[in-house]
């Protein structure tokens, strides 16, 4: 359970959003959607304390900064240096660093956890490749594997499905559903409106603030999409005769 209380973030004098409060339930996959610049990634970075903000966020009623190990954050792929001399295995291994703490080195237990995670995302044969050699989908699966190894209660993924192949997308959704079954809180910042109803249980629609929040079937409708995005888009998505999908 992740609770965000009265979060305000401003990069310039105009805030991206103010006093935003929202709670994400465990055992559910919540999607966050909204137009570009709506504040989706900003919400996450603010909640995690990665950027300047006012307001506080809590995991199981404890402030995030005290229980960081309970959160796994899978950031946008574009932010990373893919020329770095590190292999797939080593990237996933860094997921164990939080648990190990300052002066312990990863041992056999950690290495086994990494192998298991790699199997879950079908990357075992790639484990010794340098990460720059991978496709977008393979790379995303590496970071999902890292999140598996972190064994956190809350997992947040920032636009994981941008530019990846169908198979990778399916494999990642498979992992998310396993996590859901295990009772984790899963949050996905989604970059478009594809498959919203298929992937998510709950939906948070944002446009410089919350437009709507709740179960997909309640919230994903013509009115809300029009409010967050535009009338045209809403019309295209929600014609009278077509199903919402």
């Amino acid at each position, binding site marked *: 359970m992740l609770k965000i209380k009265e979060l305000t973030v401003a990069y310039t004098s105009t805030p991206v959003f103010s006093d935003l409060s929202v709670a994400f339930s465990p055992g559910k996959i919540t999607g966050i959607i909204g137009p570009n610049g709506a504040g989706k990634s900003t919400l996450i970075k603010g909640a995690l304390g*990665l950027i300047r903000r006012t307001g506080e966020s809590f995991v199981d009623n404890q402030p995030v900064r005290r229980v*960081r190990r309970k959160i796994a*954050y899978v950031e946008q792929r574009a932010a990373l240096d893919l020329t*770095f*001399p590190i292999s797939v295995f080593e990237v996933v291994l*860094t997921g164990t*660093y*939080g648990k190990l703490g300052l002066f312990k080195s*990863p041992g056999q237990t950690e290495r086994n956890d990494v192998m298991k995670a790699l199997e879950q995302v079908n990357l075992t044969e790639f484990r010794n490749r340098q990460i720059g050699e991978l496709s977008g989908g393979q790379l995303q699966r590496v970071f999902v594997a890292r999140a598996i190894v972190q064994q956190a209660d809350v997992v947040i993924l920032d636009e994981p499905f941008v530019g990846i192949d169908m198979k990778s997308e399916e494999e990642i959704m498979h992992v998310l559903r396993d996590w859901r079954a295990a009772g984790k809180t899963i949050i996905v910042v989604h970059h478009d409106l594809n498959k919203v109803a298929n992937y998510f249980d709950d939906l948070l629609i944002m446009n410089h603030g919350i437009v709507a929040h709740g179960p997909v079937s309640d919230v994903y409708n013509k009115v809300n999409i029009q409010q967050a995005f535009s009338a045209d888009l809403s019309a295209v998505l929600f014609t009278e005769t077509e199903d919402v999908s």
Partner: protein
Amino acid sequence: MTSIGEFIAALGHYNFLQSALLASVMVGIMSGIIGSYIILRGMSLMGDAISHSVLPGVAVAYMLGINLLIGASAFGVIAALLIGFVATNSKLKNDTAIGIVFSAFFALGFILISMAESSTNLHHILFGNVLAVSDRDLITTIIVLAIVILFIVLFFKELLITSFDETFAKTYGLKTGYVHYGLMIVLTLVTVSALQTVGIILIVAMLITPAATAFLWTNRLTTMVVLASALGALASTIGLYLSYTLNWASGPAIVLVAALIFLGSFIVSPKQGFVTKLMGVKNA
């Protein structure tokens, strides 16, 4: 070649040459190690900045008669803090902040040194003079090398994750600021030690060139760090040999050798692909 034999014989014979070789090799190793992290973190300009910023510290150390390492390190750290402050608290980009701070420090240092010392000593500081390494300098250098190696071994995974994915490191609770400033402090120590062999102006070359060369040959961080330090040591040895045989200034000779090794690697390495591409065309 007989001149290599002569060099080796001279090594056995002259104490100053032995000290010069030991000091250069040690500095080559420590520069290669820290330089690897510097280039992976995209901090080459920062490396140059810290090396220039220690000049006022050296001047103050001379004037107050305190240990050079302490005076210089103090200013190196102050510069790093100042750069960090300016970068985070203004809209200026990082390289602007770095440029302003380090050139100001360097100018200040120049003025102070001219007041405290004559110009030859400034020449030493700017370009190094490994032929004048004292026994005490030698021991100080190996202690710094030991500190560098211990730092890397103790904090290997922290350095790895903050160099590769700092955001991730923050999310699992690692105090990335401490790692950064820890690295800056060690960088300052390495810089001050390298004053002896290559001087302030060329330190950045020893930090960057062997590490960049190593990067061209491997995809594994540990290999890169070890290779960089070996290349640093190799360049130092060959540079000193050239300095002895051709009566060249030793610091610049070392840097030139490092650059040539890089050039050769740039052309030949499989990672870079020039030769393999050429060969591919031939086979087509």
